[in-house]
C-alpha cells in the first residue's frame, strides 16, 4: 500500500498475509483459530485483504484529515491567544500631567500646537479655567458637565475599566460614566454617521497591543484642558498595551487637518487597581448648590484674602533637619530641610535618581505648630511640629495638588 504524504514522500506499507488474518481475527475479537475454516480459504482471505486495504486507506485518510484539521484549529487558537488582555480597573498614574505634553510625529516637544487659521480662530474663542476665567465664566464644556470627548477624558483623575467581550473592548470611565465601545470584529466605521461626543471606535490586535482607530467626533469638545479645539475631521489612533502586568500605556496619535497642520502625539499611563470597582459619578448632583459657592468665591472682589494663620516666629525651627521624603510615586528617599533665621527653608533631596532643591520663603510657625512656606514656583509646604518641637511631618504641595510627604527630625 502506498500513501502520498503532504511533504511529497511516498510511504510503502506491506501488510503480510498472517497479519491480515490476525487483523481480521483481532477486529472480530477472535483468535485466528476461531475463524471459521471457510474464512481461511484463500479467496475469502483475498476478500478480507481487500477489505483491510480499504479500511486502512480510509483510516489513513481520516488520520491525515484530522491532523490537518488539528493543525488548523491550533492555528486558530494561536490567533485567539494573540489578543492581549487589557481588562481591569485602571487609575491615572501620578506621572500624568494635568494637561497633555504634546509632541510632533517625531516625538519633539511642542510648545505651541501647529494650528491652522481655522484652528487659531476656534482657539481664540475657547476660555479655559485659569487666569481671569473661573468655572463661572469659562466655556470649557467640562464645566457644564458635558462629555469631555477623546482624548480629553484622559485628563480626569478618575479610574476607567476595560472590559473585553466577544467582538468588543469596552472602556467604561468613572468620570461621567462615559463609555467607549471599541469594535474588534473587523467592521469599518459607519459611513456618513452622525458625529458623536465620544466618537466611533474600531480596534484590532497587533500581538498584545490593541490599536484603536476613532473617528466620527462632533466638534463640541476640546482636545485638552488648555482649550485646544478640534473639528469633526478629528482622527485618533491609540495604541493600548500593558507595559507590565500593572501598567497600561496609551500612546495617542491624532490628526485633524482642519485644525492642525501636522500630527500630534501624547501619552497616558494608568496603574492597575485590583479590587477597585467603578463607582457612580453623576456630574449634575450638586451643580446648583455648588454654583452658588462658585459665585461666592469666584466673584470679583478687591479684598485681599485675610491672613488667617497667625504668623508666628520661625525661630523655633531654625537649624538642620534630617529625615525622609516620600514622593508622590511612593518612593522614600533621604532628605534634608534647613531653616534659616531669615525665614527661609531649603529642602534638598540628593539621590542618584532625583535631584530636588526647593527654596521656601516666608516660613512661619503658627498656632498649633502648623508650619507653612512657599517657593517662587508656588510649591507650598504645610507641616506640623510635634509637641516637643523635635519632629516635623508635612506635605510638599505642588501647584497640581500632588503631595510629597516629609518626615523630619532635628538632631
Amino acid at each position, binding site marked *: 500500500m502506498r500513501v502520498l504524504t503532504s511533504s511529497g514522500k511516498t510511504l510503502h506499507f506491506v501488510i503480510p498475509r498472517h497479519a491480515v488474518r490476525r487483523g481480521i481475527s483481532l477486529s472480530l475479537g477472535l483468535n485466528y483459530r476461531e475463524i471459521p475454516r471457510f474464512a481461511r480459504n484463500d479467496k475469502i482471505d483475498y476478500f478480507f485483504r481487500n477489505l483491510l486495504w480499504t479500511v486502512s486507506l480510509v483510516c489513513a485518510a481520516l488520520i491525515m484529515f484530522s491532523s490537518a484539521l488539528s493543525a488548523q484549529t491550533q492555528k486558530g487558537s494561536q490567533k485567539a491567544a494573540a489578543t492581549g488582555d487589557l481588562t481591569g480597573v485602571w487609575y491615572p*498614574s*501620578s506621572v*500624568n*500631567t*494635568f494637561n497633555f505634553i504634546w509632541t510632533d510625529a517625531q516625538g519633539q516637544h511642542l510648545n505651541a500646537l501647529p494650528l491652522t487659521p481655522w484652528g487659531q480662530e476656534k482657539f481664540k474663542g475657547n476660555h479655559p*479655567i*485659569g487666569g481671569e476665567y*473661573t*468655572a463661572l465664566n469659562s466655556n470649557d464644556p*467640562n*464645566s457644564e458637565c458635558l462629555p469631555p470627548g477623546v482624548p480629553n477624558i484622559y*485628563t480626569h*483623575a*478618575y479610574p476607567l475599566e476595560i472590559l473585553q467581550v466577544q467582538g468588543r473592548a469596552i472602556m467604561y470611565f*468613572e468620570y461621567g460614566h462615559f463609555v467607549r465601545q471599541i469594535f474588534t470584529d473587523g467592521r469599518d466605521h459607519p459611513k456618513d454617521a452622525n458625529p458623536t461626543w465620544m466618537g466611533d471606535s474600531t480596534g484590532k490586535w497587533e500581538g498584545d497591543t490593541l490599536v484603536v482607530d476613532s473617528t466620527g467626533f462632533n466638534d463640541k469638545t476640546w482636545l485638552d484642558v488648555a482649550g485646544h479645539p478640534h473639528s469633526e475631521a478629528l482622527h485618533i489612533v491609540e495604541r493600548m498595551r500593558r507595559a507590565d502586568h500593572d501598567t497600561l500605556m496609551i500612546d495617542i496619535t491624532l490628526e485633524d487637518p482642519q485644525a492642525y497642520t501636522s500630527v500630534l502625539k501624547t501619552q497616558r*499611563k494608568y*496603574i492597575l487597581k485590583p479590587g477597585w470597582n467603578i*463607582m457612580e*459619578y*453623576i*456630574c449634575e*448632583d*450638586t451643580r446648583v*448648590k*455648588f454654583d452658588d*459657592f*462658585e459665585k*461666592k*468665591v*469666584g*466673584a*470679583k*472682589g478687591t*479684598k485681599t*484674602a*485675610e*491672613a*488667617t494663620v497667625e504668623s508666628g516666629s520661625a525661630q523655633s525651627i531654625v537649624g538642620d533637619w534630617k529625615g525622609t521624603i*516620600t*514622593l*508622590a510615586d511612593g518612593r522614600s528617599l533621604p532628605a534634608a530641610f534647613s531653616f534659616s533665621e531669615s525665614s527661609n527653608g531649603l529642602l534638598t533631596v540628593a539621590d542618584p535618581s*532625583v*535631584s*530636588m532643591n526647593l527654596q521656601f520663603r516666608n516660613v512661619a510657625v*503658627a498656632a498649633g505648630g*502648623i508650619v507653612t512656606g512657599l517657593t517662587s*514656583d*508656588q*510649591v*507650598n509646604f*504645610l507641616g*506640623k511640629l510635634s509637641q516637643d518641637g523635635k519632629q516635623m511631618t508635612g*506635605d510638599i504641595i*505642588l501647584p*497640581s*495638588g*500632588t*503631595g*510629597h*510627604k516629609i518626615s523630619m527630625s532635628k538632631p
Partner: protein
Amino acid sequence: MKSERITRVALAFSFLLASIPLWAHHGASEYDMTKIVSLSGTVKELQFVNPHTLLTFTVKDESGKAIEWEGELPSPNLLSRRGWSRSTLKPGDQVTIIGAPAKNGEKGMQVKKLVFPDGHELPGTVLPPDSSK
C-alpha cells in the same frame, strides 16, 4: 555628563508638573495658592456629593462670634478611596481645616487637608503618596 544633568533637571521639573489635580472639574483659579490658612472649625454640614464635596463650618472670631466658612473638596468617589465616608464629619465635630483661601476674601477655601483633635489627618486636595507609580 551633560545628558545626565539634563535628565536630572527634567526629573526635577517633572515633579512640578506632575499629576492631574483633583479639582480639575471646576478649576482652582478662585483660590490663592500662595497662601495657606489653618482654621479651627466646627462642622455645620458636609455635602458628600459629586462633582465636589462641600464642607460648611464655623470659625469663632476674636469676639467669639461664629463666622461661617465653606470649603471645597474633591468628589466623594476620590475621597472615599482615601479614607473618607459621608459620616466622616458630623455637625458639631471639631476639626482643623487647612487650605488655600479664596482670592476675593470671601469665607471660602479649597481644603487641602483636615487634622482631627487626636492628631490623625484626612487628605483633601493634597494627594497622599499611594501605590500609583
